[in-house]
C-alpha cells in the first residue's frame, strides 16, 4: 500500500518536473537559486543514501560486513571500474567478510 502511494506520488511529481518546461515554460530560464539547488541536491542526498544504506538495516543502526563492501566499491571506483564491476566487487567483498567472520 505504502509502495503504491509512493509510486503514484513520485510518478506524478517526477513527471511534473520533467514536463514543466516543455509544456509550460517554453524557453524561459530557471531562477539561478533553483538551478543551483537542482545541481547540488543529488550530491548531498546520494552521499546520505550511500552511508545510511550501509550502516542501517530496517531503519535501525547496524554496522556489519557491508562497510567492507562499500570500501571495496570505493577502491573499484578509484580504479575506474565500470558500474557492474563496482557492484560485484562490493557484493563479493561483503560475502567474503561474512564467510570468514
Amino acid at each position: 500500500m505504502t509502495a503504491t502511494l509512493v509510486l503514484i506520488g513520485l510518478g506524478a511529481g517526477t513527471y511534473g518536473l520533467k514536463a514543466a518546461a516543455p509544456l509550460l515554460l517554453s524557453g524561459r530560464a530557471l531562477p539561478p537559486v533553483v538551478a543551483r539547488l537542482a545541481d547540488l541536491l543529488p550530491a548531498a542526498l546520494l552521499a546520505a543514501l550511500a552511508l545510511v544504506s550501509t550502516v542501517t538495516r530496517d531503519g535501525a543502526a547496524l554496522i556489519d560486513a557491508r562497510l567492507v563492501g562499500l570500501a571495496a566499491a570505493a577502491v573499484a571506483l578509484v580504479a575506474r571500474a565500470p558500474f557492474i564491476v563496482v557492484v560485484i566487487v562490493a557484493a563479493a567483498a561483503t560475502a567474503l567478510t561474512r564467510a570468514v567472520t
Partner: protein
Amino acid sequence: MAVAPFGVAFGIAAADAGLTTWQASAFSLFVFAGSAQFAAVEVLGGGGSAVAAIAAGLLLNLRSLAFGVAMSTALAGPWWKRAAWSQLMIDESTAVGSAQTEHRWRRYGYLCAGLSIFATWNLTTFVGAAALSSSADVVTTWGIDATIPAAFLALLWPRLADGGQRRCAIAGGLVALTLIPITPPGVPILAAALGVLAGGQRRRERAST
C-alpha cells in the same frame, strides 16, 4: 552510467525493500528516473514514510526541471507530443540531445537515447526484481545487500570531482549519519538536503577565475 546493470541493481533493491516484481516494474515505467527510484525504494525499505520516500525522490529529481529547460526549444510540437516526449527527460537523453546543434537533431538524439534507455531500464528492472524475489535468502550470503550502497556511491562518484559538490556530499553524509539514531527512518536522508548549504561558494569562485 551503464543502464542495464543499474536496472538490474534497481530491481534487486526494490525486491529487497519488499516490493513485488510488478511494483518494481511500475516504478520503472511511470517514474523512469534511476537515482530517484533507487532513493525512494531505499527509504521505503528502511521503514520510512511514503512522504519521506516521495520527497527524497523529488529532491533528487529537481534536476529534471533543468533538463526540461535545456530541451524545451528542441521539443517543439503539439502539446500531446511534448507531453509524451517529456517522460523520457533523464540525464542521458538530455546529454545526447544537447550534444547536437540543430533543433531537429537535438530532438532526434533525445528521443533515440530516451527510448533505448526506457526499454533497457524496464527490461532489466524486471529481470533484477524477478531474480531476487525467487531467491530472497541469498541477499546476505552473497552480499547482495551491499550492492545498494555501492550503487549510490557509483552514482555519486563523478560529482566528487568538483569542490562544491564534494562539500555538499560530505555535509549531507554527516547530517544523515548524525540523525540515524535520533530521527525516524527516512528523515536522515531528507535532512541531508541541508548539505547543499555547504556548496554555496562555487558560483563566486567560478566568477573570479
